[in-house]
């Protein structure tokens, strides 16, 4: 009887482990399925099912200025600018934003945006409350409504294409971070969101009073 119980327990544990392994691997085989992994994490409350760890795979060099951006990412609004797709759910209203971005920054080509940056924000430990306790997924609470990536458009009132026209820029929490404000409301240094981007080659727009904006380029 005791051996039967031990056998059942061992068997159940094995099945759980195998299921976890299969589910985890099945989800991680396509970068665009990543948001669903995040959903499942919330259902099971067990980190092993998330199976996320950063990869830092094949990041393009960061271009400086217009000519280097064109050399690295092509002309504005070209088809590569929308080659990757992911969704990102805003913390405040639950809206899932569809996001297109450049081929070289995600999907099968690179692990940069959809896997590493987003993964750090979704799962990485961070003490955004400032209480000395780092908790997993704290940064995600600062990704609020108004999340945008690709758009074929110009910087307002100028002769410059916006970095969004290459799919190499992302705005987060834009409903709370109007352009021109030098004090950030949601995307603060303490929120940990800037670190998650900056540690993966993204440049934060706070330097030019654009707290919501991150771009994979400098001097532009």
């Amino acid at each position, binding site marked *: 009887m005791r051996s039967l119980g031990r056998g059942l327990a061992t068997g159940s544990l094995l099945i759980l482990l195998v299921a976890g392994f299969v589910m985890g691997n099945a989800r991680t085989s396509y970068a665009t399925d990543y948001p669903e992994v995040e959903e499942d994490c919330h259902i099971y409350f067990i980190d092993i099912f998330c199976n996320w760890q950063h990869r830092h795979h094949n990041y393009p060099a960061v271009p400086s200025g217009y000519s280097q951006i064109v050399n690295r990412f092509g002309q504005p609004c070209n088809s590569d600018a929308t080659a990757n797709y992911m969704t990102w759910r805003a913390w405040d209203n639950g809206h899932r934003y569809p996001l297109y971005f450049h081929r070289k920054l995600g999907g099968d080509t690179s692990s940069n945006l959809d896997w590493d940056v987003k993964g750090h924000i979704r799962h990485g430990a961070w003490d955004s409350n400032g209480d000395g306790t780092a908790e997993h997924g704290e940064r995600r609470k600062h990704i609020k409504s108004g999340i945008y990536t690709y758009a074929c458009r*110009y910087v307002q*009132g100028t002769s410059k294409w916006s970095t969004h026209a290459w799919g190499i820029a992302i705005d987060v929490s*834009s409903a709370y971070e109007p352009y021109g404000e030098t004090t950030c409301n949601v995307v603060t240094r303490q929120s940990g969101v800037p670190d998650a981007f900056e540690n993966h080659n993204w440049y934060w727009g706070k330097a030019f009073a654009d707290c919501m904006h991150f771009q994979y380029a400098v001097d532009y």
Partner: protein
Amino acid sequence: MRIARLRHLWLGCVVALLAVLLMSSLMSPAVPAATWPSTVATVSGGGLTISTPEGGRTQVPLPGKVGALDLTPDGRTAVVAAGSGVEGPLGGVTGEIIVLQTDDLTKTARLSEAGPITHVTISSDGRHVAYVKDYSELWVFDVEVGVSRPLTSARLLAPGVLGSVLFDPVFERSTAEPSVIVGVVEKTFSGEDDKLDNLWRVPLTGTPTKLTSLVEGPGEEDWQVLRSPATLGDGATVYTTGSSTSNVPPESWTASSVGADGTSETLGPVPPMTYVLGIDGSKMAALVWDKTNGLFDLYVQTLPPGGTWTEWCENGCEVLREDVQAAAVASS
């Protein structure tokens, strides 16, 4: 003996060639210098170069880099914003606004400004300079008195529009009481890129009025932007527009004009992101954006009779300068 004869033959050929060259230069008509625009000011690498009919090309020594410039219609007076470059997509400089004479480069007025300056324009008589400060405020500087004051702001002209800016101000030329035509961002994408622009007329004393009535398409990603108003002697304002309705680049941009009475006319197609600098009736000077390097080439397009065209450069174009950051021309 033979050698001496050959030497004479050689000398004879040289003399004959020189004679032919001299005669051809005397007989051929002189190559006419470009008469319009008479004065051209350009910015390259942050430095200012002015070309006048009398003085040739002169590089003007200025403190820091030049961020914006303009010329009076007669080309005698220039205004520049010069100083330290400001980081960011909207750019500009912090430093000084300087008014100078183009013939001897005498600086006749200077104004220090702490906020980023992105655009300057000077009135036809050279007595007023209007400029955009902090991206969203339009100020006017009385050159003779040496005092500046605010005229209006994006907050007043586009209330409630997050991140709205003012751009491309230009003095109206025909009115006794000078007014400034200025671009206003009336809708934005997430508060940082323009989705809809329009022109406003801002008198130095009085209430601003809307000059154009552009509307963008109904789609979430649609946009209709406007650039580079240039004012003419008859009260009309020429500007360029581009639009997109499917989140792809516009196939073409268009130059249009709006009269003092508000009537609009389409002039013809222009390359994307073309800035009209001036029109003299038979020619139009414009900066054309070069997608290979992000700089501009200065074109002078010969206009067909009637002043409208169906194809860019259909009556001929001349490229006056290449790879400049900004330019202004004497438009009279």
